């Protein structure tokens, strides 16, 4: 069944589909004139098969992909890509499922898209995560290594994420760390925003190449601007209007969440423009600060979530930059103050001494 018939069956009109294609062109920062081309690319039969690998994860990215309550154009497009292997959503199980993966792997070697969700544990010889008796690292190197390219979805697959947070007990690694020579597109986020995933795939269908990426291998169309710089509450930031406590006047007025530890100024993502759940809302709109989930080093660098700066590790108690800084200034004041008192005592009668030595000099 082609995508046109599928849409008809599920009640997605042609108009909805074209509207969606126009929206995708916007997501990718292309001209709306690209919309018909995007529709054409999606409808063509040269769609690549997808193998979706899940490792050390919470299936949150899969949830993000499936979250729609009614079939949408976006979902159909992901359906339409022949997702030949996806542990969570495929009906096959056990050996059947594994053989589906093998078939795709053999038939489309070097042509399929590999999507990876979750970090890859390398500790204890990979015993922390195995599928069908093989370690995650083995599977990734074989299936990922032979893909056309890899899309790492979610912060775990892109930077190690939560499993790699201190003290990283499973020695979790990101996809790029294990396959440094492979083309990897990172789509961080906790979870990934499905609009960015479809956007990346559509870009590949349209141009046959991955989109332009930044130094963290994130597509620039989605991670090219800071949340802070596109935030709807930015005017309150510039005006100096901040939420001081949950539920206070400012919070009710929708003022800036900077003082509540919002990590928007540190985080590159298109949440304010694309939003979540089909553009319904996103964290800051809902009154909670950004957690910085799509940045490398999330969790370690972005916690405490309700403070601006990270605590200094190794001090046990909460050691903030302000406490350490105040201690530095206080200690120097005490040290130099004491030095001053001692010097004043030591130099008693300095004026007389200096004067008399001058007179002695002159007498000579």
């Amino acid at each position, binding site marked *: 069944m082609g995508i046109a018939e599928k849409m008809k069956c599920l009640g997605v009109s042609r108009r909805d589909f074209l509207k969606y294609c126009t929206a995708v062109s916007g997501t990718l920062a292309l001209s709306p004139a690209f919309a018909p081309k995007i529709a054409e690319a999606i409808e063509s039969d040269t769609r690549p098969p997808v193998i979706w690998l899940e490792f050390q994860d919470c299936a949150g990215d899969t949830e993000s992909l499936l979250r729609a309550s009614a079939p949408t154009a976006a979902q159909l497009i992901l359906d339409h890509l022949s997702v030949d292997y996806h542990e969570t959503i495929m009906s096959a199980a056990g050996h059947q499922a594994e053989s589906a993966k093998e078939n795709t792997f053999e038939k489309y070697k070097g042509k399929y898209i590999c999507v990876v969700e979750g970090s890859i544990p390398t500790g204890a010889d990979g015993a922390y995560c195995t599928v069908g008796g093989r370690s995650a690292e083995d599977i990734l190197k074989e299936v990922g290594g032979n893909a056309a390219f890899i899309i790492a979805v979610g912060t775990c697959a892109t930077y190690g994420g939560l499993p790699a947070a201190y003290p990283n007990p499973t020695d979790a690694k990101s996809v790029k760390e294990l396959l440094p020579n492979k083309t990897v597109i990172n789509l961080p986020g906790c979870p990934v925003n499905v609009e960015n995933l479809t956007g990346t795939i559509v870009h590949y269908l349209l141009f046959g190449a991955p989109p332009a990426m930044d130094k963290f291998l994130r597509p620039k169309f989605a991670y090219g601007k800071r949340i802070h710089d596109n935030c709807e509450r930015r005017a309150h930031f510039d005006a100096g209007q901040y939420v001081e406590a949950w539920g206070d006047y400012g919070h009710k007025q929708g003022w800036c969440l900077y003082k509540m530890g919002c990590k928007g100024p540190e985080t590159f993502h298109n949440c304010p423009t694309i939003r979540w759940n089909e553009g319904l809302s996103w964290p800051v709109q809902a009154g909670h600060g950004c957690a910085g989930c799509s940045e*490398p080093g999330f969790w370690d660098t972005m916690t405490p979530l309700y403070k601006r700066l990270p605590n200094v590790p190794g001090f046990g108690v909460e050691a903030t930059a302000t406490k350490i800084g*105040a201690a530095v200034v206080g200690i120097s004041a005490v040290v130099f103050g004491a030095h001053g008192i001692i010097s004043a005592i*030591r130099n008693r009668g*300095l004026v007389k001494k200096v004067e008399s030595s001058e007179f002695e000099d002159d007498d000579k």
Partner: protein
Amino acid sequence: MSTKECAAKRFIYVWEGPVRITHWINFFCIIILSFTGYYIHNPFLSGPISTDVYVMGTIRYVHYLTGIVFAMSLIIRFFWLFVGNYYSSWHSFINPLNKNDRSTFWAYLKYYTLLGRKVPHTLGHNPLALLAYIALFTLFILQVFTGFALWSQANPNGLMYSLTGWIFPLISNQWIRFFHYLVMFLIGGFVINHIYSAVLFDFKTQSGEISSIFSGWKAKKRD
């Protein structure tokens, strides 16, 4: 017959114009940058009810503008390190291989730690102070660099980001921000040391330590 006079005899022009001017530019910049920077970390002014204001916006603007002035001042001072007179140039750095330099250094170290009383009179920076200034200017450079790096994140496709953004794959922007904030306190600790030491030596050497940063002239001790 002699009249009462201070221990100092001949005055020498020690601090040239650019040294004094950059010193005072740095002085004002550090004050402005510290206050505006602290506000940016913790916007302590109570929130205005009207949106017809631009408090954070103005303070950030002042912070960035002062940061540019500070960077320029540092560039001029570094230029003077190579073209200025002996006291302002890198020639006055102590040479650890030189016996005289080493003994001056130890004398000052003993003096500062209250173990010794006599130190040779130095017209320019004493060797211990010089070390402190090298450390301080290293902090200044790091502060300017991290400041511009954090600022450049507003436009990751711009020139400033391509010059400074390479730091972020090495150290996350949260730790850069942490460092940029903490260094403010380190500089504050230095300021206490700096003012105290200047006053201490003003008393001790009677050579116009404090006034020299205004006039440039400093007394040489009579031999």
